[in-house]
Every structure is written in C-alpha cells, then in structure tokens.
C-alpha cells in the first residue's frame, strides 16, 4: 500500500473511531451533555461581537441597554443594584418571601455569592429544581443573577423558572450580577450556602 494512502486511511480510521469513542465517553461521563436538549432556550443577541463590548475589554459589571432591551423582549424584568440591595435588606427575605437565585455553576457559586442566595445551575436543573421550585413558587419576589454584563445564565434560569410555573411578575433579573455586587464592596458569602437542602430522593 502506498505510504500516503496508508496515512490517509489511518487518519480516517482515527477520525471515525475516535469520534465514536468520544461520544461513548460523553455518554458514560456523569457530567456528559445531552445531545438533544436545547441548553439555550432563549434566542440571544448578546454573543455577537457587534452588539456588545469584548468580554476582556473591560468590566462586565454594567449592563448595557442591549441587555435590558433583550430582557424586556423576553418578558423579564431588570433591576438595578440599588433595587437588588433594597430587596436583599427586605425583612421578607428572612420569611422566604424574597428569594435570591445564583444562576452560575457550583464552583463560581462557592467562590462567592450574594449572602443567602440559592444556587441554581439551569444546565443541570434535575439537581436543584425540585427543591428550589416550591421556594420560588411561594416567594413574592425572586431575584436571579449571574456574572453580570453579557452573561445570559440568569435569563435562562429565569425562563426555566417561569416555564415551571413561577409567575413572570415575580421574577427579576439583577443585570449587574455578582461582578457589580462585588465591585461595590457588598458582602458575599462563600462555600455551599445555607438554608437549602438538596432534592429529596
């Protein structure tokens, strides 16, 4: 067999078998992705470079008008840091009537979140949604946040909660997110958080 042909055939074999094995590895992995699920249920305007600043070009703490317009288009309400802070200091929070939701993944949440916020990774709703949903349904105000700026996880999480039955009128997105919160030296809590039990089996 000519050498070039042998190498070409070998490349093809590596590509096909390797890809097949990679799919099996993803399937076996406990963190593997579903191939069919739409992880991004809300159309986005944020990721296009022309519509927003480069993520590395500056702090994502301030949410631009584009983000607010997008939230409104999706039937969601945006709140500022001042409004978030007022709600955080609201005595109703202690009664479970004001709930803060951190829509970032576990590592980011544990590294620092708004005190009392519950973690909800909407990419893995099966882990937390069953325990979280009753709390959100009984709350009068549910404030969802993520990193801030152009991050979309708070929107996706809010849409998932809305679709699960939480009234849209009770859902608020703190668009500045944790970047805005920490940039103003507001208190954060680290670790797994408290007052939240995992879903019962």
């Amino acid at each position, binding site marked *: *067999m000519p*050498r070039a042909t*042998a*190498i070409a*055939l*070998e*490349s*093809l*074999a*590596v*590509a096909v078998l*390797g*890809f097949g*094995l*990679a*799919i099996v*590895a*993803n399937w076996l*992995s406990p*963190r*593997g*992705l*579903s*191939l*069919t*699920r*739409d*992880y*991004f249920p809300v159309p986005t305007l944020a*990721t*296009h*470079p*022309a519509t*927003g*600043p*480069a*993520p*590395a*070009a*500056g702090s994502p703490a301030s949410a631009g008008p584009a983000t607010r317009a997008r939230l409104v288009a999706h039937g969601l309400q945006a709140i500022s840091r001042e409004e978030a802070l007022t709600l955080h200091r609201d005595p109703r929070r202690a009664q479970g009537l004001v709930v803060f939701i951190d829509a970032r*993944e576990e590592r980011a949440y544990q590294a620092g979140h708004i005190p009392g916020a519950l973690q909800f*990774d909407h*990419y*893995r709703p099966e882990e937390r949604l069953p325990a979280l949903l009753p709390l959100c349904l009984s709350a009068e105000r549910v404030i969802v946040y993520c990193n801030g700026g152009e991050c979309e996880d708070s929107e996706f999480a809010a849409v998932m909660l809305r679709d699960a039955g939480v009234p849209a009128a009770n859902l608020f997105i703190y668009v500045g997110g944790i970047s805005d919160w920490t940039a103003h030296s507001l208190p954060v809590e680290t670790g797994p958080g408290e007052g939240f039990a995992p879903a019962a089996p």
Partner: protein
Amino acid sequence: MSAMTASPPTRAWALAAAVLRWSVGGVFIYLGLTKALHPVEFLKLVRQYEVVSQPPLLNLIASALPWFEVICGLLLVLGTAVRGTTLVMMVLMIAFTGLVVRRALALAAAGGIAFCDLRMDCGCGSGEVWVCGKVVENALLLVALGIILSAPTAFGLRPALFRGPRVAESRVERRDAKAAF
C-alpha cells in the same frame, strides 16, 4: 520500533521525536480533560463562535471534541496510529486556530483594542489567555506535530495501522530519518 535498529544518529532522532510525541500527547490529554470535565462551560464557549448554535450538532461537537482530543493524546502517548493521529490533529489545530483568530479579531474590533491586547477564553482548555500567546502556542504545537509526522516512530505500540511488509516499512522509516537530518 524499526528506527531503534538504525544508526546512532537516527536512533537519537527517533528518541527525541518520541519524547516530543509523549509531551504533545500529554498536552492534548490535559487540555481535553479540562474541557471534558466541565462540558457546560465548553458548550457555552463553542456556541459563542456562532458556527453552530443549535442542538443536536452544537451538543455533539461540544460533547465529543474534548474526549476526541483526549483519545488522540492517548494514541500519541501510546504510539498507536501515530501519523494518522498527527495528521488529524494538525487539520483540527489549523481549523480551530483560524476560528479563534476570527473571533478574536471581531472582539478586538468591537472593543476597540489591539489584537495582542485581547484576553479571552477561547475554549481551548487553558482558561482566559492572551490571544497572541495562544496563536504562538498553537503554531509551536503545529511544528511539533509536523516533526512527529516526519520522524521515525520509536517506542510505539503499533505505530502504523495499515502497512506493507515489515522490510518495506523499515526502509521508509530509515529514509525518513535520513531526510530529516
């Protein structure tokens, strides 16, 4: 293993290429695992390239690519199907570097900053990096892959999946080694 029966310079060359192969294989295993263990983060980054945006294709790419990288890294470390694996990695490396540069140029233009002043998470498995540095790193990896492709394979577990008679293969390997010097 044919190269190990060749002359001392050829043997040294084959040994150096083997060390390079193990190193490059290790890099791919590390970068692949970093992404494979946090697939959602990788999925989000892949989506930002706006090449594919819908499941199942988006999910398929984001779920398979990291593991594919790990598998190719393992093949390089083991010395199995070395040239085929190397060629596939070179093609992917060129394509992905092109995509990274395209996205970085767009972000740099949107942010009004110079290309080399841009830091971003390119989804390469190394977190947020200087784009210029990443391009140089990829270029070095491409050179390393080129060396592995052209050098004789030592310490390999079935280096070639498809080959002719052993004598012919040995000649090919020796000729390669001489050409490389």
